[in-house]
């Protein structure tokens, strides 16, 4: 009980509350503007978090990302352009509702079920994380190696792309993490004589490049979204309570799917929304209504993406393995703020963890009033010309990257990773897998090398501890899955030949 009171004391500080409020507004605006994502919002927030207290820093990331994921629904419903990738799965559905004259209902569902989903995700985090922490306290380097390996493989499994390309992206990320002297032997690797490269590639400038500069580059090639006509909205929350009762099962299912996908390394809110929309359609009594402006899928996937956001913090806080691209950035901030991820965070720093839960709940409750204001102002916000926003983003990338270490080399890293991310995305290489490789590379290598040294060259200790054996089986299965899936994909062709129907 005393830890909970202590946690409340940590949150109810003026600087934390101001950080939550300002980052909420920031997240709502960034999320609502098409082409600016929740991950970008987090990446651009990092330099500012350096100057905040640890709790305020984490609070601003949590709040901004939660708000941005909700706010991405707004242009989806009004313009049929998702504000963030997490809203893409159900953009058609919510736009169809708007065309039927139910814009308020579509936006209300987005807001109400986002908040409920976020709270459900937080509850899952509160229940799962301490239990897993107890288990994880007994982990040795063998378990950590398999866990990290499994995490890397997960990112390749869930990518909406070719698994081979996803593995290649992940390896590219690992290669990038090799640069510098931060390896068990302390030998400079791939530095090509440059002193700037000795320290390695910092993950945060790399992520700013991949998630912010890449979006600006993409904006250069896509036409400006159409202007939104000014409109007045009726009551936003009307009828939401009735929908909550009517679609309780769909909502719960969305929450559970969201939590599972969020907790999987590398897969975040956008994946959760896609899967939940598909699951909803599959189990619906009226699947034919999907796509015509029907609330069920919207409720389920809206609940799912915000639940995923909170659940992504489970592996991030416990093992330093990012659950999505937002936590990939947040982990860097956690280390910087002395809140090093690991099971001991839950035993020694229990009050900080409670403070985190409180912030999550607070952010999701705050989402409702601020979200309503945002929806009412959306026609004004969405009228901001892209030619005015994107230059500001570039400038913030430059100054932000410089601010991280007062080093201009970071700005070059941002530019380089903007290019890398852009080329990869255009050619079907998932950048999230590369990001995971960059963030986890050092951890994978250290646990691998320490384990091999401890086992004295023998392979057996990698498998003979029970948890290690389970993790190893899962990891190897994940590695072989693409092969299995490829063989499976050859099968229907033969069947088609027999039946003569063809594909």
């Amino acid at each position, binding site marked *: 009980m005393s830890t909970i009171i202590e946690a409340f004391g940590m949150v109810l500080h003026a600087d934390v509350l101001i950080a939550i409020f300002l980052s909420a507004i920031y997240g709502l605006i960034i999320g609502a503007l098409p082409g600016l994502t929740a991950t970008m919002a987090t990446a651009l927030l990092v*330099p500012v978090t*350096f100057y905040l207290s640890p709790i305020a820093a984490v609070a601003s990331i949590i709040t901004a990302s939660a708000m941005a994921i909700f706010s991405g629904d707004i242009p989806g419903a009004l313009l*049929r352009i*998702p504000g963030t*990738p997490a809203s*893409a799965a159900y*953009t058609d559905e919510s736009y169809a509702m708007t065309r039927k004259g139910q814009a308020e209902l579509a936006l209300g569902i987005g807001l109400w079920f986002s908040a409920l989903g976020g709270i459900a995700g937080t509850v899952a985090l509160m229940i799962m994380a301490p239990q897993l922490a107890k288990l994880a306290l007994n982990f040795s380097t063998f378990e950590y190696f398999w866990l990290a390996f499994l995490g890397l493989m997960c990112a390749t499994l869930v990518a909406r*792309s*070719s698994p*081979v*390309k996803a593995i*290649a992206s992940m*390896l*590219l990320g690992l*290669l990038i993490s*090799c640069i510098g002297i931060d*390896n068990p*032997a302390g*030998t400079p*690797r*791939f530095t090509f004589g440059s002193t700037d490269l000795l320290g390695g590639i910092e993950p945060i400038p790399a992520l700013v490049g991949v998630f912010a*500069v890449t979006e*600006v*580059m993409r*904006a*250069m*090639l*896509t*036409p*400006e979204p159409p202007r939104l006509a000014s409109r007045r909205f009726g009551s936003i929350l009307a009828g939401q309570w009735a929908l909550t009762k009517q679609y309780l099962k769909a909502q719960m299912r969305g929450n559970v799917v969201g939590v599972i996908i969020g907790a999987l390394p590398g897969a975040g809110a956008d994946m959760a929304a896609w899967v939940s929309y598909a699951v909803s359609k599959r189990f619906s009594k009226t699947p034919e209504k999907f796509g015509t402006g029907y609330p069920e899928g919207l409720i389920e996937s809206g609940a799912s993406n915000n639940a995923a956001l909170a659940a992504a913090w489970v592996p991030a806080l416990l093992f330093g393995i990012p659950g999505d691209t937002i936590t990939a950035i947040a982990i860097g901030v956690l280390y910087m703020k002395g809140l090093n991820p690991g099971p001991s965070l839950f035993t020694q720093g229990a009050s900080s963890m409670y403070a985190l839960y409180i912030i999550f709940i607070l952010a999701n409750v705050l989402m409702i009033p601020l979200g309503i204001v945002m929806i009412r102002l959306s026609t004004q916000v969405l009228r901001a*010309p892209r*030619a*005015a926003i*994107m*230059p*500001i983003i*570039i*400038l913030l*990338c430059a*100054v932000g990257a*410089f601010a991280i270490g*007062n080093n*201009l080399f970071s*700005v*070059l890293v941002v*530019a*380089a990773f*903007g*290019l890398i991310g*852009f*080329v990869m995305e*255009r*050619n*079907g290489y998932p950048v999230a897998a590369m990001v995971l490789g960059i963030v986890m590379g050092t951890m994978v*290598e250290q646990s691998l090398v320490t384990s*091999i040294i401890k086992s004295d*060259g023998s392979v057996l200790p990698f498998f003979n501890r029970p948890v290690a054996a389970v993790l190893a089986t899962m990891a190897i299965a994940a590695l072989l899955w*693409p092969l299995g899936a*490829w063989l499976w*994909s050859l099968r229907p062709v033969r069947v088609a030949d027999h039946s003569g129907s063809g594909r």
Partner: protein
Amino acid sequence: MQLSDRVTGSFLVVLGGACAYGGWLLPPVPGQEIGPDVFPLVIGVGLVICGIMIAFGIGHAFEEQEELVAPLPGEKPPPPITWGRGLTALIPAGLLVFYVYAVDRLGFWLTAGLITLAAALALGARLRLAIPLAILTPMIVDLIFSKLLRVPLPPGLLPMPW
């Protein structure tokens, strides 16, 4: 920027080969079986294998369309991007490189103003919008970063009025 799988796959093979070779050249740690060379070797070999598979189109069937929201039936699909227009995508990265090499000499206001102006014009802004934006944005960013967050931004040729 759209390259064929054959090109990107071959690039990965070369990169993986270079990575494995570079790793192999690294000096071992005396008295240790496993040194700094193992990890790059594993990554390099993995990249070569993936590169070969990609070049031969294995796994291509799993790739989904790039557009997140497909165009409506009545809507005309966006025009294909020509190489000339594709090159404009390089502008943001180029502007960042310009920032690195110019900021110490020209100062923050001038450099940031030029970047903002160039980016706004490249995105099709009118001068009426681009010029005020180029003057005001650096001022606001300077206020936040150098006054509030105490990041040392170089004054250069044109210092801020404060």
